[in-house]
């Protein structure tokens, strides 16, 4: 049963992808996507239900073929495809990087260690299960969202021939590759799935075939290929340093013998480096920002549940392996730096998707920094952050996508007052934003854990502190923009809805009479994710015991102590406490009181905003009388602190500093 479920998780998307590619009928394709999504979700849930503790599994053969050889073959096939593409692109860098992988890998497979068999090939612990859940559920929701989105997208582009089959082929394939990646224990298999995600992301980013799309896709390709090269190098070094096949198993690598730490430090560093490239840490942030040219489902997928999470997963997974080493501190430093700078860059952006992109990079930085801090509490923080980030960020991307289709812009300045015209989506977006930045929501709780556990490394905590100040800035103003402007109309319409208006609209959205006209394939993902973000935050104590705690248990026994106590109120540790429920309750009560107050109609008058005595009589139109007695529209804009943190101004410095840190890291490791 469990084996079958694992098979479904990995193989079903491959099958689904191929079916998508073959089906020309959009309805049929939609059905395939939905079925795949539902099945994946079910299988991941079942898997989660049935597995307690690490599960080892080595698939024997597939359709009569040895899986191991199959993957080796597929690996080379993939690399040669990329090589072919590289030649077609005429990009020497990509060619070089591909060759740098093919040659050593061939040498390794053929000369150094022919016919390596690493058992178990799959090692499925709770971390992998959590990843599987995220990938399967969030990923599927995004794919479902994509159905309708791509229809409109192609409509906008006026394509003659639909390119959706190809699009969904890669989109769904991605899920399978990710599932394979998180389950793999065999580093060679892991590498294969790793490259598949790289390749898929390349194809998806370049999907629109515009010049800029191809350029950005190429950038994504070469940056991730650097990671691939590091990965291959790591494999070779492991074998070379230990002269044993055993440590090609990830779990063995993590639980390596005490005497091996120095010998394995370089491979660890290389694998971390591979993780950094995939997680778009500075100086590799540009590929993820460039990926914004892709259709929104792609961005959502890359950012929330897949791709970047692969890098994060690898580093977090290996954390116990390099605990207490110099590498660990450097990882924390490097990624805290990423957190700080990416947050700063996000402040500078007015493009909604770019804000999300930089915020993703920042959050990944924080997650990896937690892995680097490497205390039990920090690892917990990292895992929680992975979960909450995936949900909220996926939600936000889908929201921006929906908004973009409605208003034709992804600039946050254009979302000013959007609450007037798209109340439901705006509310959900605001919920998404608040879950990213405010207590008692999960993302903030993980940040709380991160700061408390980082407290003993002052420079890391400083960077985290500065960075989190910056995140508040860009989130708060974005949330505020939605409600900016006169709101007479909306409130009038909702007067009879009582004070559960936000919740009510979300669910009423599904009734035929509702004003929220988007189709179900857009509503379902949005609502599910929004509700999940809130409910999971509320259930953090439960989440903690049932999900995160076992994560630790699956690590090397005895290495970790349980960092937190759960109680009815929330979590407490030796040094701090985070009361989820009370804060939640008080906030809700406050909110209800506020809404009741807002609904009371007694004595209230509307007034135009203060315009120094020159306001326009109609309060729904902010205007003022300017020179020549003309009516001038009042326009507002955010402060982007251009002269402090202009993107083009500081990117160079950020990249240089990041490179220096990396060089120090490797220099020290090699010493």
């Amino acid at each position, binding site marked *: 049963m469990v084996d079958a479920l694992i098979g479904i998780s990995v193989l079903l998307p491959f099958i689904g992808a191929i079916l998508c590619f073959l089906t020309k009928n959009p309805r049929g394709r939609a059905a395939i996507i939905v079925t795949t999504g539902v099945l994946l979700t079910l299988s991941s849930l079942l898997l989660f239900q049935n597995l307690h503790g690490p599960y080892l599994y080595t698939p024997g053969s597939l359709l009569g073929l040895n899986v191991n050889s199959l993957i080796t073959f597929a690996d080379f096939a993939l690399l040669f495809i990329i090589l072919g593409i590289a030649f077609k692109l005429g990009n020497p860098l990509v060619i070089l990087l591909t060759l740098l992988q093919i040659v050593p890998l061939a040498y390794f497979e053929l000369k150094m260690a022919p016919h390596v068999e690493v058992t178990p090939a799959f090692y499925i612990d709770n971390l992998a299960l959590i990843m599987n859940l995220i990938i399967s559920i969030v990923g599927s929701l995004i794919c479902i969202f994509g159905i309708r989105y791509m229809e409109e997208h192609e409509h906008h582009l006026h394509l003659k021939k639909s390119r959706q089959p190809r699009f969904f082929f890669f989109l769904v394939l991605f899920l399978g590759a990710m599932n394979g990646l998180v389950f793999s224990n065999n580093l060679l298999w892991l590498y294969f799935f790793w490259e598949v995600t790289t390749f898929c992301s390349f194809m998806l980013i370049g999907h629109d075939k515009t010049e800029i799309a191809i350029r950005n896709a190429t950038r994504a390709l070469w940056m991730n290929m650097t990671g691939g090269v590091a990965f291959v190098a790591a494999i070779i070094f492991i074998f070379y340093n230990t002269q044993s096949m055993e440590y090609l198993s990830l779990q063995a690598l993590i639980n390596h013998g005490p005497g091996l730490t120095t010998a394995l430090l370089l491979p660890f560093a290389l694998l971390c480096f591979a993780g950094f490239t995939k997680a778009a840490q500075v100086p590799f942030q540009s590929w993820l920002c460039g990926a914004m040219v892709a259709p929104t489902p792609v961005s959502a997928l890359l950012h929330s549940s897949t791709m970047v999470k692969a890098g994060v997963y690898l580093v977090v997974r290996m954390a116990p392996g390099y605990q207490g080493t110099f590498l660990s501190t450097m990882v924390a430093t490097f990624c805290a730096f990423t957190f700080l700078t990416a947050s700063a860059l996000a402040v500078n952006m007015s493009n909604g998707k770019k804000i999300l992109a930089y915020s993703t990079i920042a959050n990944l930085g924080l997650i990896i920094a937690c892995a680097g801090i490497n205390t039990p509490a920090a690892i917990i923080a990292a895992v929680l952050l992975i979960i909450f980030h995936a949900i909220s960020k996926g939600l936000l991307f889908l929201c921006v996508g929906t908004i973009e289709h409605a208003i034709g812009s992804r600039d946050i300045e254009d979302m000013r007052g959007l609450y007037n015209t798209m109340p439901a989506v705006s509310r959900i977006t605001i919920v998404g934003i608040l879950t990213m930045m405010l207590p008692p929501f999960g993302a903030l709780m993980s940040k709380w854990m991160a700061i408390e556990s980082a407290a003993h490394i002052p420079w890391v905590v400083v960077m985290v502190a500065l960075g989190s100040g910056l995140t508040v800035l860009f989130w708060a103003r974005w949330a505020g923009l939605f409600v900016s402007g006169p709101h007479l109309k909306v409130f009038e319409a909702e007067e009879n809805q009582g004070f559960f208006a936000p919740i009510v609209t979300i669910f009423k959205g599904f009734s035929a009479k509702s004003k929220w006209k988007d189709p179900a394939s857009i509503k379902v993902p949005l609502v599910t994710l929004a509700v999940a973000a809130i409910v999971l935050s509320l259930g953090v104590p439960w989440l903690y015991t049932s999900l995160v705690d076992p994560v630790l248990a699956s690590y090397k026994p005895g290495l970790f102590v349980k960092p937190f106590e759960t109680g009815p109120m929330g979590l407490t540790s030796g040094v701090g406490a985070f009361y989820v429920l009370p804060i939640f309750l008080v906030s809700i009560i406050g909110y209800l009181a506020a809404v009741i107050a807002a609904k009371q109609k007694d004595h209230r008058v*509307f007034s135009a905003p203060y315009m120094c005595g020159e306001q326009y009589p109609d309060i729904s139109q902010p205007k003022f009388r300017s020179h020549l007695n003309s009516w001038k529209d009042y326009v507002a804009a955010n402060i982007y602190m251009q002269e402090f943190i202009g993107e083009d101004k500081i990117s160079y410095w950020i990249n240089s500093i990041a490179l220096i840190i990396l060089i120090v890291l490797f220099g020290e490791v090699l010493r």
Partner: protein
Amino acid sequence: MKRLINTSRVKSPWLIHFDCGSCNGCDIEVLACLTPVYDIERFGILNVGNPKHADILVVTGTVNHRNKKALKNVYDQMPEPKVVVAVGACGTTGGIFREAYNVVGGVDKIIPVDAYVSGCAAKPEAIIDGVVIALGKLAEKGKKVDQGIFERLENTQNFIKSR
């Protein structure tokens, strides 16, 4: 409670000063009231500078065709209950300029005035007296305020419905 609020109203009148076409004479005397020598903060008076926070509108100077619109707008943005003090010969009647071509006249041509302070320039003492007189009216209006508010509320509601 109601009485408490009404007392507070008299004890905490926030003031906004609007200079229509004043020659600055009365202006600086209004400002002088805030400074150490006269210090009207003794009576809880603050110069808030924002009509939305203000209870008392102190107007100096003549009303002309351009600033009458601004004056009306500022007055409209003050929440009830509110009173208006017209200061100086200009503010009360148009003063020495009332025959000039661009002068409309006193403040009461545009908005209802609750206290008139004569002088050119009106002395700070006189301005304080004027404010005190206006406070009496403020307390009176406070009692009736609910009715007025309902009227305005109805207008707003009609406005919303008509759109």
